[in-house]
Every structure is written in structure tokens, then in C-alpha cells.
């Protein structure tokens, strides 16, 4: 589904991603872990098409199509969804209005019929139960006055409604208490299927107790320095990122 080949990207002239290679197949969940500043969020933003980042080299194929050539909205319409680390507030625009517009834009792109209001509302109700969304959040302005937990929950709710092929969760666990974490994780688990894939970007192993990944990658200094199965996450948790830094100091030094 997703092929990332030697991806290098910079912001303000500073290279952050220094040659990422990653292959994700349908139905897989990949966790990307790493210390602060290793490039985890950059990778998420570059895949979503954030323009501040300059792609220096490399290729990203999404179902055979060149993702890097597409505008951010077309990537979304192709089925890439980014659950933001810091979801932004949009005053005066109701959640439900955003979702209806977004869903119909995506359907239009795919040559599907527009959903009428009744069908849309029925669908949305079923998705709300997935993340235990309170009703009033639907009518409220997008993320405005939401608590940190509500914002993250809202991201997963939007993902549930838009039903992407690839969901990228950028530190969705940050700022969540244990109950909210469980709700969010259970929402993601219910969305997992043989047809979609997820990239779970996280700093802590904690989230991976709930969303169990098929693969874990350690990102350090803009490169994936180690990949493994879920046990790698435990090893990291146990030994800490300092271990990574020391272990790969020589490697990082070469690149830096």
C-alpha cells in the first residue's frame, strides 16, 4: 500500500528526514517510535503534504501512485488521513459541517454519489459510538474549547467517518489520561481491517499496549535505525532512548 524510498526532507534548510525507507502492506499496523526531534512528526507531515517541508529526494508510492506529486487535499481523497498531534481550532465551523463537506469532497473525487443528510446522520451516529463521542461535540465548532482529550478523540472520530486506507496517528496518545487513551485505542482497533493500514507515531510504548502493532520502527536522527516486531517497543521502554542514542552514536555521527 505504501512504499517510502530514500525519503529526505528539510524545513528552513535543515534536513530532518535523512533517507527513510519503509514498506507498509494492506492490513498492517506500523509503530514509529523515537526520541524527541528524531523526525517522527516530520514524517507524518511530509506524507500528508505539509508545504513547509521541502522534499529533497526520494519517492513515496501510495497504491502505486506518486504521493509526493499530489496536493494535500488529493492525498486525503486518495485515502491518507492524518490525526494531528495538535488539532487546530476553527471557530464558527461545526464539526458536523466539516465532516459532511469533507466526506462529500472525498466521495466526489472517487466518483461516488453525495450522501444525503439522513444517510449521513445515520452513518455518523454509528461512528460516534466507536469513540464514545458526546453528542454536543458534533454541533460545536471544530476543536474550539475542546479539552486535550476531546481533541484527540475528535481526530479519531473524524478518521472513523472518513474511513481512510491509511491512517497516520501523530502522537495521538500525548496528553491523554488512561481512560481517554483506552477509548481512543479501542476506536482505532475497531477500525482496523484487512483493507486499511495505520502508522502509529508515538513516543511511549504505553499506547502500543492497546493498539498492538505488527511492526515497530525506531526513528533516530532522521533515519529508521532498527525495525522489529512489538517486542522492540518493550526493549526500548526498558532501556530508554539513551540506549538508542549511545548505541547508534557512531552511526548518527556519520550522518550528522
Amino acid at each position, binding site marked *: 500500500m505504501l512504499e517510502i524510498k530514500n525519503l529526505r526532507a528539510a524545513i528552513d534548510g535543515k534536513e530532518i528526514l535523512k533517507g527513510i525507507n519503509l514498506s507498509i502492506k494492506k492490513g498492517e499496523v506500523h509503530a514509529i517510535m523515537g526520541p524527541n526531534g528524531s523526525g517522527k512528526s516530520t514524517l507524518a507531515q511530509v506524507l500528508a503534504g505539509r508545504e513547509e517541508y521541502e522534499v529533497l529526494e526520494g519517492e513515496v508510492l501510495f497504491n502505486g501512485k506518486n504521493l509526493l506529486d499530489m496536493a494535500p487535499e488529493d492525498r*486525503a*481523497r486518495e485515502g491518507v488521513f492524518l490525526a*494531528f498531534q495538535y488539532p487546530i481550532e*476553527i*471557530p464558527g465551523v461545526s464539526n458536523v459541517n466539516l465532516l459532511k463537506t469533507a466526506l462529500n*469532497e472525498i466521495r466526489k473525487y472517487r466518483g461516488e454519489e453525495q450522501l444525503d443528510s439522513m444517510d449521513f446522520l445515520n452513518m455518523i451516529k454509528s461512528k460516534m459510538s466507536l469513540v464514545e463521542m458526546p453528542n454536543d461535540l458534533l454541533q460545536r465548532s471544530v476543536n474550539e474549547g475542546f479539552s486535550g482529550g476531546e481533541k484527540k478523540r475528535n481526530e479519531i472520530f473524524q478518521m472513523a467517518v472518513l474511513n481512510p486506507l491509511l491512517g497516520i496517528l501523530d502522537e495521538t496518545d500525548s496528553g491523554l489520561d488512561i481512560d481517554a487513551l483506552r477509548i481512543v485505542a479501542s476506536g482505532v482497533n475497531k477500525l482496523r481491517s484487512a483493507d486499511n493500514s495505520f502508522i502509529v507515531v508515538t513516543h511511549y510504548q504505553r499506547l502500543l499496549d492497546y493498539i498492538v502493532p505488527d511492526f515497530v520502527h525506531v526513528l533516530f536522527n532522521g533515519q529508521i535505525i532498527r525495525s522489529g516486531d512489538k517486542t522492540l517497543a518493550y526493549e526500548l521502554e526498558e532501556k530508554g532512548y539513551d540506549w538508542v542514542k549511545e548505541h547508534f552514536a557512531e552511526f548518527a555521527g556519520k550522518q550528522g
Partner: protein
Amino acid sequence: MSTTETNEIEKLANQEYKYGFVTDIETDSAPKGLNEDIIALISKKKNEPEWMLEYRLKAYRHWLKMEEPEWPNVTYVKPDFQDIIYYSAPKQRPKLNSLDEVDPELIKTFEKLGIPLDEQKVFAGVAVDAVFDSVSVATTYKAKLKEMGIIFCPMSEAIQEHPELVKKYLGSVVPYTDNFYAALNSAVFTDGSFAFIPKGVRCPMELSTYFRINASNTGQFERTLIVAEDSAYVSYLEGCTAPMRDENQLHAAVVELVTLDNAEIKYSTIQNWYAGDKTGKGGIYNFVTKRGLCKGVNSKISWTQVETGSAITWKYPSCVLQGDNSIGEFYSVAVTNNMQQADTGTKMIHIGHNTRSTIVSKGISAGVSNNTYRGLVRVGKKANNARNYSQCDSLLIGDKCGAHTFPYLEVNNPTAIIEHEATTSKIGEDQIFYLNQRGLSTEDAVNMIVNGYCKEVFRELPMEFAVEAQKLLSVSLEGSVG
């Protein structure tokens, strides 16, 4: 923003004014210029009674002594008042019994503008008094309103058929001595709307007037007067478009509203006159005096405006809260793009006890435009327990435009409670990217953000007007993000 997006934006920005066309109709015009003979001619053309001519002449003589105001935060070449045609009427048969008899060219123009003159729209509940140039050509639903005692007709007709009402109220809120343009309007106005809602009557439909400036070099001076007697209610809609012109066209209207005890007037405007081309050439000068007098106790006047057009806007719909417990409201969205300049706001004059006013102003500036909010809240010595809440927000699109806020407070009574909030924000790339990531194009994203920003004002508009307003905003801001 990337280069490709900038190109896209430039392409969109180059779109021409959608309603720029000229209707080919013979006009019956007065010669250019202004003097007492011209005013007498206007009065004669309108078959006016002697008192009306006298009023006009008094206003004209006063105007001659006045200076054009220079305090607004706008710059323009002052109009040459001797180079304007003050009377121009489409030639038509004198008596019309139905729309079928109206000049088909006129009907075509209205259709192009999407004005609901056809039966369908009439059945939808909108009574239309369409002003084409300076003469009203059609009035619908009059009979039904008449049954309820409501008068809704062109001002010229009201002067002849309801002289006692016009005499009583015309100039009672905006006297001709008020300001330069109000004096000019009082001298030369050719038409406009008159609405009178008698005691205890709730007007069952929204009254609507579409203004359209047509003949070249014709300044248009509408005069509108709306009176709601005790416990009466009316919602009035004003909306307009104008064709493309090279010369600046002067537009100086006067609108007066009067509410007696327990009465309410809701006045909504969508203004989309030609704003000039990208270099600022052409475009309408819109110098308007709008004021409402809450004369009776517990009365209420509410102004809602969506201003997107005109090269220069100079306009302060105001409320004089004379009756005890009266309420004044002002909800405004003012958009400026390209070279447009707007200096707009409101005045809330608290005179009676327990009077309350609310001001919600949303300015949106794009291009190299300048958008100024100017508001006055005055609490008189005897106005005990007056309250005002003002909220003035400015939204900037791009980095070449300007937003200015001039709030004036004159509080002469210690029991007053005045609150003022002001914010300035920019449409963030973060917001646009967030919406892009949900599948919306940049243009749709901007529209969504702007409409969200204006929500508090749009929800004050009648439903179908709110939909029009949203569309208008999209058109006005097309390609403004960069």
C-alpha cells in the same frame, strides 16, 4: 504558499465582476449638473406637491453651505457634483397592471441578477419593490399587504398618496442638516421605498427591495423610510448589484427607521456594488446615512449588513435609543479586497433608561484593501442603566491589507455598563492545511473558515439571505489567499 497555489490564486483573482453588464434601455435623463432648476425638474417629473419641492430646496440651500467630510479613513478623488446626472428614468408605459407589461429588457436584467420578480419567488413570500435606476418599475404583493393596512410602495408614490405620513416622518431621524451627503440626498433623491406598519400589525413577509444602478453617470440617491407603529413588526431586506463602469459612480442614500412603543424593525442589507477593477479603477462610491430611532418604549431596531462591494464605503447604520428599555443592534460583515476601502461601523446613542445595545462587527480584509471599523457608543446624562456590548473582530488575508478599529466611547452616566472586545487574526496556514488534509481544496477551506468567522452575523439574516451572503463572500474572496 507555494508557487502553484499563488498562480491558481492569481487566476481566480482575475475573474471579472460577475454582474457586469449594461442594459440597453432608452433613458429619459436630465442634463448634467445641479442647481435649483434641476431640483424643480426632478420634483416636477415626480409630480410632487409644493411642500416636497420646498423641502428639497431648503436642503439644497443648506448643502451649498456644507463641506464634504474628510475625517473618514479613505482616500478618493472627490466627485464633481456638476458632472452628475441627477435624474434618469427608464422610458416605459405610464400604467402597469402586471409584470407582463414591464419592458422585457428590464425583466431580462432582473433575471440575470437572479432577482425574484417571477411568480414563483413571489409565492415564496417575498414582496419585491424593484428600483431600476431611479424609478420603481414593479411592486408585487401590494394588495395583500394593503388588506393588513401595511403600506409598502415607492417613496415617490408615498409622497403623493400618503403625504401626511411622509411629512410627519421624513427627515425626522436624519434631518437634511445632518451631514453633507444627507443634505444632498434630501435635495435630489428620486425614489426609494416607503413602508408603514400600523399599530399591532406583524408584517407576515419579509419586505424586499433590490436596487440597481444602471444609466452611466447617474448618481443614485435613494430615500427609504420605514415606520413601525405601536407593537408592529417588520423585517426588511435590501440587496443590490450594479454593472461595470469606468467612471466612479456616486451613491448617497438615506435610510430612516422609526419604531414606536413595543415595535421592532429588522433591517438586513447585502451590498455588492461594483468595487472597481484590480487597479481600483471604476467602482461605486457608497456614502450612506442610515439611522433608526427607537422612539417608543420597549422598541427595537436591528441592523444586519453584509458589505462586499463598492470602491469606497462610508456607512454607519445607527440607533438612537430614545424610548425607555429600547434595544439597538448592529451586526456587520464588511469585506474588502483588491483596492477597496471601507470605513464603516455604527453609532449607538443611549438616551432613555435601561437601553441596551449590541455591536458585532466582523471585518475581513484581503488584497491591498483597507477596512476600518468606526463605532460610537454614547450614553446620555439621563440614560440610567444603559448597557452596551461591542465586539469588533478583524480578519486579515495576506499581508498587504489593513484593518483599523476606532471605537469611541462617550459615557455621561455612571450607571452605564460598557463592554468592548476586539480581536485581529489572520487565516492560518495551519487551519488551511488541516482542512486540506480532510479533503477540502484551499479555496473551499478559506470559504469555510471565513463563513465560520462570520457565523454570528449570518445567523441574524433571514435564511435565504444568509445563503446568498455565504455565496457572495465566496465570490468576493475568490483567489484572495496568498
